[in-house]
């Protein structure tokens, strides 16, 4: 396992990530993603992260080495569209059993690879490590190497067992596997000065295809998309691109950065969501290509396309913008979407009452602030209960989120629209933004919400409505907590103090309070002492609040 540990450490040392570089050596070793909290409802594991990052490579056989749990739950559950091969949708697993656990599963894995190659003859087999074989010591790297030699075909180990960390880490470990085993192993038939890579785009609901015609029109060739609608060899020769765009925030920053390092491919981080972002991305692509030797007239053509497409999109959004003006949106998503969608919604005249930043990086958060101003309501780890409360108190008109959060909205009687991977509409590009606005309009105007919020008509006037019921249940819970506090004040106080103020730096309420009591009576002083509010800065107001709350106490002490 030492090599896996090294890889993880390497990923944690990502120099392309400003947040990581801002940490001390010791902090960095702890990892770049927030430690999971035992007892809390958690997001996906590293295996899941690796699987979703690579599964969109459509002609590869994705073989999961583990018990049925891993492939059984992840088999084809993302809407990454393919223009051809369907092999990526076939669920391959070694489905290991007790005998494998006792005697080891390596032979089983080897045989499974052999059967895949005999029956399907894919251009490559990706083998995913999972917790159980990792713990019993199955060396999938060795098995893959032996199989690759024996069958004369790439067999790529994806070493990202679930226990090493969360989904985001899995994305990066998947990227590492591509860097180590795939990228640079083939050569394209020809190259052009207009070849680009798109990294971190998964072609969900065919979003890549919505962008591609514009790039085609400009004569820009997507040499490789990692990994939406990709073919194995396309990824293998991606090192010959002239420039790269990194789409999904930091999920695959290691791939983009290392390809720059190894092959001199410059990259930028951009988004296809939102009209302004889309235009910026096209400009940036053109700029990087021109820097690498493409004809400078490309920029003129790009600007012409941008002007035309923006005008067309605005024209089509205009009728909706009137209806949506002033509508309030609560955004529960992660990473790149937390800011890229903000821009898009603002374009349609909507107001963002809050956005979650759980999976977002510091840059993501800064972009949100740029867009929404310093007052941006950013929420880190929103518990379902908190979301529920927000839906009520923020008086949002609609919540946009992934499928897992939908039920919070639905039970609260809140219009909800899916913007994560299980969505059925493509929202990328100019056309996609029109589509998103149309969907929001359609969702908000759905008569169902009226029905959902109405109590049974036989309930008396003034009886509990959906909002008061939601609040009542929250209050009841608060009372219970208060009762618990009375029962065990010490524990309750410890819990209260442990609550984080600053999510970026992991500073607890207790630490801030101690600093204030110790004499740090300004936000700056508290920050200097504890590190609170030196990340995204969003918690500054909370620090101020604590100072204000404690000042009478301090004055009394004086």
């Amino acid at each position, binding site marked *: 396992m030492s090599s896996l540990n090294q890889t993880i450490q390497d990923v944690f040392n990502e120099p392309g990530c400003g947040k990581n570089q801002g940490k001390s050596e010791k902090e960095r070793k702890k990892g770049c993603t927030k430690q999971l909290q035992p007892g809390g409802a958690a997001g996906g594991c590293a295996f899941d992260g690796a699987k979703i990052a690579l599964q969109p490579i459509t002609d590869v056989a994705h073989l999961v080495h583990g018990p049925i749990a891993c492939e059984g739950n992840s088999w084809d559950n993302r809407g990454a569209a393919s223009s051809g091969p369907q092999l990526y949708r076939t669920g391959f697993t070694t489905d290991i059993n007790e005998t494998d656990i006792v005697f080891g599963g390596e032979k089983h894995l080897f045989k499974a690879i052999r059967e895949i190659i005999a029956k399907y003859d894919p251009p490559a087999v990706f083998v995913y490590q999972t917790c159980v074989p990792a713990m019993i010591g199955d060396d999938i790297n060795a098995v893959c190497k032996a199989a690759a030699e024996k069958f004369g075909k790439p067999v790529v180990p994806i070493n990202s067992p679930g226990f090493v960390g969360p989904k985001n880490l899995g994305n990066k470990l998947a990227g590492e596997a591509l860097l180590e085993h795939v990228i640079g192993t083939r050569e394209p038939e020809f190259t052009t000065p207009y070849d680009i890579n798109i990294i971190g785009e998964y072609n969900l609901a065919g979003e890549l295809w919505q962008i591609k015609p514009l790039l085609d029109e400009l004569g820009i060739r997507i040499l490789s998309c990692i990994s939406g609608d990709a073919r194995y060899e396309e990824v293998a020769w991606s090192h010959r691109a002239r420039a790269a765009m990194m789409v999904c925030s930091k999920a695959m920053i290691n791939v983009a950065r290392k390809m720059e390092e190894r092959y001199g491919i410059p990259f930028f981080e951009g988004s296809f969501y939102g009209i302004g972002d889309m235009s910026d991305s096209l400009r940036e692509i053109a700029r990087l290509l021109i820097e690498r030797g493409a004809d400078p007239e490309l920029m003129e053509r790009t600007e012409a396309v941008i002007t035309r497409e923006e005008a067309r999109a605005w024209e089509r959004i205009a009728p909706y913008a009137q209806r949506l003006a002033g509508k309030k949106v609560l955004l529960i998503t992660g990473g790149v979407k937390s800011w890229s969608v903000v821009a898009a919604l603002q374009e349609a005249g909507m107001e963002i009452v809050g956005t979650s930043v759980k999976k977002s990086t510091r840059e993501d958060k800064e972009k949100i602030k740029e867009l929404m101003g310093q007052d941006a309501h950013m929420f880190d780890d929103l518990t379902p209960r908190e979301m529920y409360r927000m839906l009520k108190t923020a008086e949002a008109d609609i919540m946009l989120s992934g499928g897992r959060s939908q039920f919070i909205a639905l039970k609260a009687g809140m219009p909800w629209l899916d913007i994560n991977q299980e969505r059925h509409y493509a929202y990328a590009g100019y056309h996609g933004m029109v589509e998103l606005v149309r969907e929001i309009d*359609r969702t908000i105007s*759905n008569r169902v919400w009226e029905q959902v919020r109405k109590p049974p008509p036989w309930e008396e006037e003034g009886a509990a409505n959906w909002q008061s019921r939601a609040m009542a249940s929250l209050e009841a819970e608060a009372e219970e907590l208060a009762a618990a506090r009375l029962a065990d004040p010490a524990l309750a106080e410890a819990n209260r103090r442990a609550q984080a103020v600053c999510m970026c730096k992991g500073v607890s309420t207790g630490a801030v309070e101690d600093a204030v009591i110790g004499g740090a009576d300004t936000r700056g002083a508290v920050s200097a002492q504890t590190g609170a509010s030196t990340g995204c800065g969003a918690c500054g107001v909370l620090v101020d609040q604590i100072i204000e709350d404690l000042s009478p106490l301090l004055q009394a002490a004086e």
Partner: protein
Amino acid sequence: MPQDANNVIDHFELFRGPEYQEMLARKREQFENPVDPTELARVREWTKTEEYKELNFARDSLTVNPAKACQPLGAVFVAVGFESTIPFVHGSQGCVAYYRSHFSRHFKEPTSCVSSSMTEDAAVFGGLNNMVDGLANTLSMYKPKMIAVSTTCMAEVIGDDLNAFIKTAKEKGSVPDDFDVPFAHTPAFVGSHITGYDNAMKGILEHFWDGKAKTVDALVRVPNGKINFLGGFDGYTVGNLREVKRIFELMKVEYTILGDTSDVWDTPTDGQFRMYDGGTTLEDAANAVHAAATISMQEYCTEKTLPMIAAHGQETVALNHPIGVEGTDRFIMEVARLAGVEIPEALAMERGRLVDAIADSNSHIHGKKFAIYGDPDLCFGLASFLLELGAEPVHVLATNGSKGWAKKMQALFDSSPFGANCKAYPGKDLWHMRSLLFTSPVDFLIGNTYGKYLERDTGTPLIRIGFPIFDRHHKHRYPVWGYQGGLNVLVTILDRIFEHMDATTNVPAKTDYSYDIIR
């Protein structure tokens, strides 16, 4: 010949064989006066145009593919809901064979029904002898407790007087004097099966309440707190009535279901043949006069019955086949009001579950366009449910719908922003619907089995809700009323939407990029 005794193949495959295909082609050429295929295609395309639609809607004599059945069918439906009652249809026996097959094709169950088997002699000299012999034979052969008489057109055209005939038959000793023989005139050339339901129900209630054709004193109403329930003609009667009973029990309402067919069309296979399983006892039918109120689930099935009941001093409420949240709310609240009971928490929970299911799936139905046809009340119930779901019931057609019904539909459309482009078509048939589906297409069609031709011709996916449903089994065992029934209707609609989605995204490497496992 390709049929081989060792490997017998069914008609699906057999007639696709070359021998049969050649035979059929020869027949077409030699005997069918074939037209030029391009001319055929031209006309077929022409039938899809606005021009053709206008000509089609200008039709004033010919009905093509009517979406209604005849009065006696409704009368038979009513009769079998009463205790040990046999429907006796005075007229031609062929008609009766139709009702029986019609019901058994829909319910996959037998329906007991006899006929006076009038022939040409009877048509000339009147059907009295057939009535006299028929009643006597029916009693001696089938031992019913009651014989409910209705008529076919044949008896109506010659003007047979049921009241007098039954009286004469009793005088001649066909059946004992005090034997219950209620009757209703049910000519098919007036109204439809829903009219027949109305007439037959009214006939039976009047028989018991108003002195059994002047043979005994009329009952004197002594009001109690009970509620009478009329389901109307209903293809989902088994599931619906059981659901309604469950709701009544939950609400602790004392009730009488008039024409209780809940056990008639799904009798158990346990070694016993149940010729009769109607659930309304004759005693209950008589005592129903004392009830506080009568609630009808289908206004247009009870247009004469309800005023008759009201004239006896009861409050009456007519609903329109309530489906969904708002419709069921109204039903439940009316029952609670009429019976003076509280609505139990259990029903509020069921309501919440239906609302939850609607919210979970809202995006798939919202904004979709539907065409609906069927009986007027069912059309109303479905249309209001679709409006509730944010769908547009663009074309709503009832061959047996009246102008008053169309007005009521229009008022429903006007009550919702989703009704802006919707229109009701009273008295139109399925060939009119065909034109509508071509000139202003919709996403889905809701109707009975006959809609499958429209589905084939126009490509509009059919959602089977209505009567008759011959080509899908057992739908009648599941309710469409109550909150649970609303859930069934929701799921029926959703299933078809998802099936359609899958069917249009399953071409490998062409459309299957959207052939997703999560919908």
